[in-house]
């Protein structure tokens, strides 16, 4: 099951021509929120996604109400990676842990970016999703 917002994001991408899909990804890149202060002060809390071509760090938070938040940071000169992180941060924000874990692992391959971005580059997004899910499991078990 894909969450409502992730499904909407997918439909937005699929409705566009290949060239415009890239520009939508750029919009996401520009919208990646800044890291909350507590993570800026504690970079050690962040996990590096080594599968990505650019240095990107993520941190999963499960708040007091049991809701999911993803924080991520990547350099300005890595807009593709920032775009991937932003799609996941926005698409998964505020969901229950169960719904995050139910997101299909092949979501990145389903949003119509294979041609515009290339399958190889999309692996970085799959790795980000995989690591976010693993972090969620760890938070819940802890």
């Amino acid at each position, binding site marked *: 099951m894909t969450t409502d917002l992730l499904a909407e994001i997918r439909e937005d991408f699929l409705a566009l021509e290949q060239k415009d899909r890239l*520009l939508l990804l750029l919009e996401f890149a520009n919208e990646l929120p800044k890291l909350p202060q507590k993570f800026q002060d504690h970079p050690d809390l962040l996990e*590096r996604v080594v*599968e990505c071509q650019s240095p990107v760090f993520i941190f999963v938070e499960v708040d007091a109400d049991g809701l999911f938040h993803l924080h991520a940071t990547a350099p300005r*000169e890595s807009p*593709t990676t920032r775009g991937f992180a932003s799609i996941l941060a926005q698409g998964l924000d505020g969901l229950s842990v169960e719904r995050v874990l139910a997101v299909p692992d092949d979501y990145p391959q389903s949003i119509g970016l294979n041609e515009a971005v*290339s399958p*190889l580059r999309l692996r970085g997004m799959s790795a980000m999703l995989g690591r976010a899910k693993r972090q969620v499991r760890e938070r819940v078990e802890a």
Partner: protein
Amino acid sequence: MSAPFDTTEKFSAYAHPSKLVSTQWLAQHRGDAGLVVVESDEDVLLYEVGHIRGSVKIDWHTDLNDKVNRDYIDGAAFAALLSSKGIARESTVVIYGDKSNWWAAYALWVFTLFGHDDVRLLDGGREKWLAEEREMTTDASSVTRTDYPVVERDDAPIRAFKDDVLGHFGQPLIDVRSPEEYSGARTTMPAYPEEGALRGGHIPSAASVPWARAADTDSTFRSRSELDAIYRDEAGLTDGDNVIAYCRIGERSSHTWFVLTYLLGFENVRNYDGSWTEWGNAVAVPIAVGTEPGDAPAPAPRR
């Protein structure tokens, strides 16, 4: 009509100074008739974030690779691509990009497969242009379509296939990957996606010279004397050598191919673009593990 050459003193020590331009030269000449500036990056969106005014984008994955076969595009597709970018057969093309021109060098190598005569790199690439706070824009470049001729790709002079490598043993091979990939401790470079090579290690007898050693901290190419020290003194290359360079998919080794061919003047250098993702998966080819090059097997007879 070709643009004037850059007479920067550093370049004059290289074997083919005409293959490089400085950021200063480009700032002065980027509006010249007959000159097209191309940005080629690892990150497919970087051009959209900001590019040199008037430049066009060529992406290695989505433009230069065939969509179905593991191969480069053919002459018709290359002609269509370059026509759409406003590049004529006589155009001077200056390519720049991120990561010390790693992907720009790859694009230049593909242009060379099609025999495009005047194609140059911007020394220092995107990083140097940005570091000098030169103008970048997000404005779309206006392109006047050209009619680039269909030229058949000529692979033989600068591209090696697996059988070429098997027949090459006894002559120099340069492995430009990271030390961890060379030794076999890992099959992909640190912090990069796993591209699915089954075995770790290197092609027996290959010398290890990671590609980025040819780049200085500001992303420009190292000086002639520094490059001679690395490739001649250390890796043991001598004039007249027939050299094959490889990496993982042939992109990093394009950078080394550029250095050996145009900066140091070796005339027989080929890039094995099948590289480790082919060799590390191929059946019954020899592999060496560890930090030593290992002995060259007997060269295989030509099939």
